[in-house]
Structure formats: C-alpha cells, structure tokens
C-alpha cells in the first residue's frame, strides 16, 4: 500500500501528480500543452513512474524517459528548447509532420492536455475571445492546436490554473475547442467516430480545487473528487453553473510519497512547480 506524503506540497505539484495518474501503462504517445509547467511535469512523471513505454511529444520531437535522465537546469515546460534534445529520440523536421498527420493511421499523439480561458458544462473550451465575435471585450492568445487535438486524439483532458465563475461558465462565449455538445450540434452529428477519431469531449477537468468528469448520458459536467483542504460547497460556489453533485464525493487522493519524491528528484529539477505556485496559495 502506497504511503501518503505527509509534508507540504504546492497546488501545482498536486495537479502534476493528478495528471500523471491519468496516463496509463498502455498509452502510446502523450502530448502535453505548450508552455505548461504543470502538465509537462505530470506527463514526464508518469513516464518515469509507471508508463515506461509511453513516448512524449514535445515541440522538438518524440522523447522517452525509460533510459534518459532529465538534464539538470532544464525547465521542462518549454518544449522547443535546444536542451530538450537531451531526452529526444526522434526529431521532427517541420511541424506539419505532426499536426497534419494527426488524423492519419499512425497517430502522432494519442492523449492530450489542454489549457482553458473558459470551460462550460458540456466541456466546450474557449481560448480566443471574451464577449461577442463582433464586439470582443478581451482577446485571448489564439486556438493554437486545440481543434486538432480535441478532434483527433483518442482522449484529452482540460487543466485549469483557476477555479472561479469566470473560468467555469454556463456557456463559453466562443467555442475554440468543442466538447461533447454545444450550439453547433454534438460529437455524433460532427461525424468524428466513423473515421476513428474522438467520439468524446474532455475525459476529465483538473482544476486547482477539484476534479470533474462528465455524466455518461447527459454529458453534463459532474464533480468527481475534491482536493484535500477544499469542500464541495466551495466548488459549487466557484462554478458558474449547476454541477452534478453525486451523493458521495470522495476526496482526491493526496500525493503519495513515491510520487512526490520522483517528481521532485527526477522530474522537476528546476523546482518550477514550487516557484510558480507557492506553498501559501
């Protein structure tokens, strides 16, 4: 039986560990979002900890951690860095190589993690604009590859840095990546499954205070577990729509000692998970 870690840890470290638990032994290739310290460290932790056959797609190529060690001083969330080549075993010679092959028979990536500016009850995600298309009130950075990844990958997850009513909204202002269903139809009507592409929206949402999944029938977001130190009531108040709340909501499994030790000693060598989200958070 694994031993629960009794010391202090940051929210970022916990979220990284939750992400690593979503990656399974049989996963072929995982692709974390760009510039996302939490997701990167989580994915690499999984590869070191329990998924040695899994490859990891960064902006520079495909990496394995089975033999390679993460170089010291390398912030692992900046995937294009030259230093990243230290764990790379196949480089890409142009991004069309991955991004246009996403729907082909040799999947260049199967599991993905997206960030979000807004996410709604059916798992639709917005990173483009707030307000209306004609009169936006805020400009986001852009869609990057979220449509590629949410359409073609076998499964994907959404990770958020905040859990508040600004992030978790009833309906997103703009649909950057489609979830299970929305004003434009549902996954079935879009015809993804018959090509072997993803018939589902995000499998899970990992926020700083809770994990959410989706009801199998209604595709409505449901509370799955609440992180240590937080309550169901708090999650309800910080969510901008009615979540499905099951009768019994378990606490999220806290970090196990071996997870924290591997994460700190072998993965997050630059301590970015400590620096970016302090213990006081």
């Amino acid at each position, binding site marked *: 039986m694994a031993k629960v870690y009794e010391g202090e840890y940051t929210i970022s470290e916990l979220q990284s560990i939750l992400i690593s638990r979503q990656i399974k032994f049989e996963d072929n290739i995982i692709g974390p979002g*760009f*510039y996302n310290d939490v997701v990167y460290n989580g994915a690499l932790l999984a590869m070191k900890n329990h998924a040695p056959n899994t490859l990891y797609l960064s*902006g*520079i190529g495909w990496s394995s951690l089975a033999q390679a060690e993460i170089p010291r*001083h390398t912030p692992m969330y*900046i995937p*294009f*860095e*030259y*230093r990243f*080549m230290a764990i790379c075993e196949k*480089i*890409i*010679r*142009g*991004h*069309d190589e991955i*991004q*246009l092959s*996403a*729907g082909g028979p040799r999947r260049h990536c199967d599991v993905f993690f997206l960030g979000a500016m807004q996410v709604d009850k059916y798992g639709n995600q917005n990173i*483009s*604009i707030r307000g209306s*298309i004609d009169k*936006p009130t805020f*400009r*986001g*950075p*852009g*869609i*990057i*590859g*979220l*449509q*590629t990844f949410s*359409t*073609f990958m076998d499964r994907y997850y959404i990770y958020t840095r905040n859990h508040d009513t600004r992030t978790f909204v009833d309906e997103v202002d*703009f*649909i*950057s*990546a*489609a979830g299970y269903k*929305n004003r*434009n*139809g*549902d*996954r079935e009507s*879009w*015809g*993804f499954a018959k*090509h072997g*592409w993803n018939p589902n929206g995000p499998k899970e949402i990992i926020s700083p205070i809770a994990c959410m999944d989706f009801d199998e029938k209604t595709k409505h977001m449901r509370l799955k577990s609440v992180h240590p130190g937080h309550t169901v009531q708090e999650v309800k108040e910080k969510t901008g729509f009615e979540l499905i709340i099951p009768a019994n909501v378990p606490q999220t499994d806290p970090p196990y000692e071996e997870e924290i030790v591997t994460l700190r000693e072998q993965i997050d060598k630059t301590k970015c998970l400590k620096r970016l989200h302090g213990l006081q958070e």
Partner: protein
Amino acid sequence: MVAIRDERIVSIEEAVSVVKDGDVVGLSGSVLFNQPAALARAVIRKGVKDLTLVMLTGGLVSDMLVGAGCVKKIVTTYMAMQDYAPICPNFQRKYMSGEVKFWECDFQHFHCTIKGAQWGMPYLLTKAGIGTDICKINPDLEEIEYKGEKWVKVPPTPLDVSLIYANKVDPYGNCIYEGSVFAEFILANATKRAIIVQAEEIVPNEYIRRDPRVAILGGPTRADYVVDVPYGAHPDEGPKYYAHDAQFCKEYVKAAKSDETFKVWLDKYVYGPKTQAEYLEAVGGITKLLTLRQSMI
C-alpha cells in the same frame, strides 16, 4: 573554362528591399525560437506598411512588427510570449482597436493553407474546427458538406516573401538547422518572390555536402538572399547557439503596453542601432551575449 556560380550573400538592407507595402510575408520560428529578428528590425526601419504576417505561432518578433505599425493582418494560430506575456501586448491592443485583423486558425488550418499554396491546390479539407465557432470568426474558413459530412474548407495563402532564420547557410542559400524546426520548409515552398535567410554563420558549400541530411532548405527552397547575422535571433533562442534573453523579454512586455512607451523602445532598439554590432551593444554587449551562450549548456 569553368563557369563561376553566383553567391547570394547580400547586406540586410539589400535583402529587405524586396519587401513591399501590402506583401504577404512568412516568418520562421515560433514564440521565442528561430524568429528572424534582425530582418524584422530592418523591415521596420524601411517603413513598410500593410503587411500580412504568416507564421505557425507568433511571438515577440511578430508583435514588434505589429507595434511598429507595419502590419494590417496576422495569419497564425497563437500570439503569446511564454511566461512573459500570455498574449502578445501590441497585438492585443491593436486587435481590440481594430487596427490589426486576425485570421484566426488551428494548426490544421494553418498547415492546410500553407500546403495548399505549396501544392498549388484550390483548397484542402479538414475535420478540425467542426463543432466550433472558427468559421464564424474567420470568414475565409468555410463549413461545407462533402459526401454527406461536414468539413472545413481551407483556401491557400501564397506568400510574396518569407523571412527565415537558419543556424547555418552557405553562400548559395542551402540552410542547416541543428535545433528546432517549425514551418520553415513549407513557408519557403509557398513563397513566390523571395526567400530571405538570415543565419548565425555562413559556411562553405563543402560543409553542407559533408552531411546534406541536415540541410532543411535547399534545391527549390534555397535562399534567394543570404544575410550573415550572428546573434540574429536575439531576443529569441538561437538553437544550439544561445538561449532567449529573459531580461529583454520582460523589458519588451513592459514597453509594449502603450503606443507611447513602445515608441521609446523602438527608438532604443530598432531605429537607433543601425547595424547588428550596434544592436548587440544596445542589448548588453559581450557580457550579455556570453551569458546567453553559456545558458545553452
């Protein structure tokens, strides 16, 4: 008699003289890597207007062109600067004021529009974007039905000129990349008038032939104009050569908050220093450069 092959090395001013008002310009690199920073500064000094910028993902260099008033439209997937700015500041301001248009798209659409131009195709189809609002915000992307199913139809975007960073180039325009490669190859292939390459160093043709496998651009995509600019990607990372300049990026983000403060920044780093040597002095000189080089280990 043996005929002599023409070298393609030119000055930076000569190279950017082919960039005209209203051109569709491809930029190499992504966010804080491989962007043609030195060429972009020369384009700003030349005072070119109404450009359409096309790049896989934008960053400081494309945002600098936007801030300097050279740009009317941007074709890309993402405009941000890592931890320094979640959204490029000049771009955000000028998008909100309506001064700059954004051809918003996903990676799939970006590659389809450039590949379409590369292959001379009228359009390509992709499933990415179905179920989303992308076709509502980008009128060039169209949802169509093909064999009873919905697809997104992506028209081609041919480029007039592309400004490209490479690690090494020979005098005849063959380019070597030793680190990250982004969309350089397809951008070059979609370019009609001129492929302009700036590189860390110019190497002899023998160097390329020693291992032609690492030459990404060559043959039909060899550079039309070759410019020798050491530390030319600064403040970006020049893969294998030097890391990106964190301090400079922070200063940039602060300066780019308003037109007034950005004008001062442009005077200091773009209009003031006319040569690469003067620019490198302005950003911190040899001490800064050695620090960035050592950070690459």
